[in-house]
């Protein structure tokens, strides 16, 4: 009996949590599988579900979606570039600070934190002006570098915490064998840090894929922008085909969800463990 009440109480929390999480996502999906004129009828399931919207989006059969695949490709290229550059920059820095104990390492960690104390939306405008000065505005490099600048501090923080946990004896043994700094990096640090690096790379990749504001500010030409900006452009029009927007949005949301689930194990362990320590 007591058991039953415990389960009932848990369900009393679980059901609202489930509905709260899923309703907007379900609504998005519902739009995507509804024919144009029935999407607005407020039904919980369409009378005649259809994949026609997907067909329209995939074949780019609307002038709003002329560059759909191209923009999807842009999103992908930019996200991958941000993931790899962040990983490169952050791993090198974390190794230097955590294992080589470079002078000023602490100061660099504090500088890195400074980035987060300028809220993202506030950094966007100065970044926009600075990119214009550098001549990078309206090139994809502007968005890539902006995202790398935003992703690296957390990446370094997580990798440094993980690096500190590796036993120092490993390095000492290798040093006795005559290992140089690059060898320590290549043969000890990299293999042992692989899980954390997967977590950090995924984090940076998702950050870039999902970004809207910076993409919208830094890229303006249709052929350069990411899918996020293209979808945002629907908003300013009166005659937007909403069911296609929702379908394209659903397609756009699938890769990050899939990537998250693929690397979930690493992400949960590494991205949160760093935070709890403080």
């Amino acid at each position, binding site marked *: 009996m007591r058991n039953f009440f415990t389960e009932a109480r848990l369900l009393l929390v679980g059901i609202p949590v489930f509905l709260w999480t899923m309703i907007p996502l379900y609504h998005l999906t519902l739009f995507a599988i509804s024919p144009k004129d029935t999407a607005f009828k407020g039904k919980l399931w369409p009378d005649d579900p259809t994949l026609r919207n997907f067909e329209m989006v995939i074949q780019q059969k609307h002038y709003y979606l002329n560059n759909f695949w191209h923009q999807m490709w842009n999103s992908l290229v930019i996200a991958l570039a941000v993931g790899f550059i962040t990983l490169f920059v952050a791993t090198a820095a974390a190794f230097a600070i955590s294992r080589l104990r470079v002078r000023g390492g602490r100061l660099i960690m504090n500088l890195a934190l*400074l980035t987060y104390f300028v809220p993202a939306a506030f950094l*966007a405008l100065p970044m926009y002006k600075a990119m214009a000065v550098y001549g990078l505005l309206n090139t994809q490099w502007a968005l890539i*570098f902006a995202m790398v600048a935003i992703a*690296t501090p957390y990446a370094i923080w997580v990798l440094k915490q993980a690096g500190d946990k590796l036993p120092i004896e490993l390095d000492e043994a290798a*040093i006795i064998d005559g290992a*140089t700094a690059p060898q320590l990096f290549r043969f000890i640090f990299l293999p042992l840090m692989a899980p954390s690096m997967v977590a950090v790379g995924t984090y940076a990749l998702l950050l870039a894929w999902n970004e809207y504001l910076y993409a919208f500010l830094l890229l303006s030409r249709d052929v350069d922008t990411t899918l996020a900006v293209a979808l945002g452009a629907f908003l300013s029009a009166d005659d937007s085909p909403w069911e296609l927007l929702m379908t394209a949005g659903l397609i756009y949301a699938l890769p*990050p969800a899939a990537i998250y689930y693929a690397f979930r194990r690493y992400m949960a362990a590494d991205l949160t463990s760093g935070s709890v320590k403080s």
Partner: protein
Amino acid sequence: MSQAASADLSAFPAAAPAAGRMSSWQNWGTLLVLPYLAVFFVFVLYPVGYGLWLGNDMQSYRELFADDIFWRSVVNTIIFIGVGVNLKLAIALLLSGFFAVPRWWIRVLGLLFILPWAVPSIPTILSFRFMLNPEWGVINQVYYNLTFLDGPNWLNNPVLGLTMSIVVHIWKSLPFWTLILLAGRLAISKEMYEAAAIDGASALQKFRFITWPSMRQLYLTCTILSMFFTLGDFNSVYLLTGGGPADLTHVLATLGIRYIRLDQVDLAMASIICALPLMAPLMVFMMRRLSK
């Protein structure tokens, strides 16, 4: 790895002085932090400095302070952060207890629960926007079916619009903080709870005397970090209400974009800099805590 290391022994005879090795390590260290320093100086420090310099015109502050929309945004920002952060973290703290319960279905629910955080803002916030549409949105249709009354015009009312932006903000960022607080909760030793159970402590007492004291510091850190993230949340307001109706739901994060659209770059910079007095004390506090 020992093979590779010993293969290279000849290149670094044991006679190499230790001091030489240390300084070579420092050189490598410096070389390896350079890429990050370059990114930081070029894409963070310079833009911020340049922004401060651009916002250094007193005239633009006079204009800014004369704009009612600015003051409205300041008030909205304070409400958005005050309500958004505290409500979100309180719920996250409670939910972290729920997700810590070992049940297969709670684990599955936890997997789904993360989705709002993992997927992009654009499609999900637009989904909210359509649900809230007064004429054909699903929320008002359900409301009509239940009461035969027309529901409110959610996004055309500044109070409801801001409230819904906070709801969307919480929907989007709740999973992240729940996960962090869950990690903190799981780090508390089980023995304390077992001992308390033997002493006959109630669930509330366990929370009050074990969970909360262990998590207070983490909770405070999360609150402050979340304030920075919330202050920088552009999407929840911009994609839901666009700052409307009549620019009455803007927050400081979206106000800058509004001025840019009006071609008032000076005002945009000035409005951003106006958030500094709010952030500076938090920044110092946070730096001290995190660099401990």
